[in-house]
Structure formats: C-alpha cells, structure tokens
C-alpha cells in the first residue's frame, strides 16, 4: 500500500514537473518527486541511497536550480512557447518507450513467474560501506576525479570574462 502511494505520487509529481509553465513550480514539483523516490528506495532496502537522495537531490541540486532561476531574468519566459512544434512526436516516442518496456516486462519469463516473496534481505548501511570501500574503491576515487573536473569546469564556464582578466592572473591583480 505504501508503495502504491509512493509510486502514484511520484508519477503525478513528475507529470506536473514537466508541464508547469513557471520554472519555479516545476522545480518544486521535482522536489516532491525526489522525496517520494527516496521513500521508494527505502522500500527497496536502500537506506543509504534514500539519505543520499534527500541530501544531494533535494538538498543540493534543486537548491542550485532555484538559485539559478532567481539569478537570471525570466520575464520573457511567460510569453515564450511552452512546448516545441513537434511535441506530439515527443509524447508519442515516450509512450512508445513505455509500451515497449511494459511488453518486455510481460514477456520476460525470468520475471513473470516470480511471486513477491517475503523479503528477508535487510541490508545495513555498514554493509553498504564495506562493499563500497572494499570492492568499489577505484570507481569511488574515479567519481571524486569526475566531481573535481566538474567543479573546475563549472567555475571556468561561469566566470565573467572581462578583457583585462582574460589571459593571465585575476582581475584584482591587473586592475587595482
């Protein structure tokens, strides 16, 4: 029952997130979606994943989106066209994707026969940490490299390039 509520709420929140005209409303509906998805992770026994989802997605990423939305000027956005000219094709493609996935689920013999057995597997966060740092230590370090590259890239992209600051040094050094 809890899963049914979480699934319905996430689908509704996702649909609202992609159809609202105001980008701030969309971001807030996406926040509702991410919180409900965290509940779904809990039902799958992934406690650490649920906590990460709340902290990273709801806490960091969506706040970042909201800051960008408030930083920029969106007065022209209300008058702009909400959907592209080929929105029918886009919706048809996504409905086709869902239909193919449902067909694959129904026809998969490996999954169709399985009844929902009592799930005895209750993994702990400690187990997750041991597995992450023993078996996946190298991918973990690679992920930190990716994040470092993203931080540097974001700073370089968002930096204001004045003629004086271009090239060497910072602006304060060249322009006292």
């Amino acid at each position: 029952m809890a899963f049914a509520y979480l699934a319905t709420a996430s689908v509704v929140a996702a649909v609202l997130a992609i159809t609202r005209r105001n980008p701030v409303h969309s971001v807030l509906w996406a926040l509702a979606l991410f919180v409900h998805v965290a509940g779904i992770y809990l039902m799958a026994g992934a406690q650490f994943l649920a906590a990460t989802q709340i902290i990273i997605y709801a806490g960091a990423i969506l706040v970042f989106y909201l800051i960008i939305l408030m930083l920029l000027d969106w007065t022209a956005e209300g008058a702009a066209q909400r959907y592209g000219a080929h929105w029918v094709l886009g919706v048809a493609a996504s409905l086709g994707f869902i239909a193919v996935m449902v067909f694959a689920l129904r026809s998969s013999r490996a999954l169709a026969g399985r009844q929902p057995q009592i799930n005895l597997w209750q993994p702990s966060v400690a187990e997750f940490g041991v597995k992450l740092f023993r078996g996946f230590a190298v991918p973990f370090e690679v992920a930190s490299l990716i994040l470092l590259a993203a931080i540097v890239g974001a700073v370089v992209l968002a930096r204001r390039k004045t003629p004086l600051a271009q090239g060497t040094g910072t602006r304060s050094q060249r322009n006292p």
Partner: protein
Amino acid sequence: MAVSLNSFLLLSAVLFGIGMAGFLTRRNLILMLISVEIMLNAVNVSLAGFSMHLHDMGGQIFAVFVIAVATAEVAVGLGILIALQRSRPTAHIDELTQLKW
C-alpha cells in the same frame, strides 16, 4: 512487506517515459535539465529494485555513482546556462542557434 520487482521496473519505465517526454517537448533549457534528472532517477529506481531482488549490494552502489555523475552534470549544465545568459538573455532552446550552419 514485500514489493515485487515488476512494480519497481514498471514505475521506473513510466518515470523514464515522463522524463523523456519532458526532454523532447519542453523548450526551456532548465526544464530540459530537470527532465534529465527525472530520467536518471527512474534508472536509479530500477537499480534499487534489482538490488533488492538479487540480494546484491552492487545495484545500490551503482546508483550512488549515478547520483555523483548527475551532480557533475548539473554543475556543468548550469555553468553553461550562465555562460549562455551573458551573450543572449534567454533559456529558450529555439533561439540558441549560434552553432547552427
């Protein structure tokens, strides 16, 4: 209480389809990025479901890596958006045609 793997996969497929529809139909750059986030979340749901079904921690660990990559993608994507905003004050994708020939 046990939930079958099929319900996780069905929910994942529906959420991915919604994100895909949003990415293909919306013309606002920020909304397209949010649609990408919805799709990444949908994939994470199926990873968590498989992890539960197979009693294997690997799915959850992979989902955490997906979240890390999604964070990097958001940082770079919004950095590009700010850089674009300098030259052209819009997030409307139809007006960003500098790279077209």
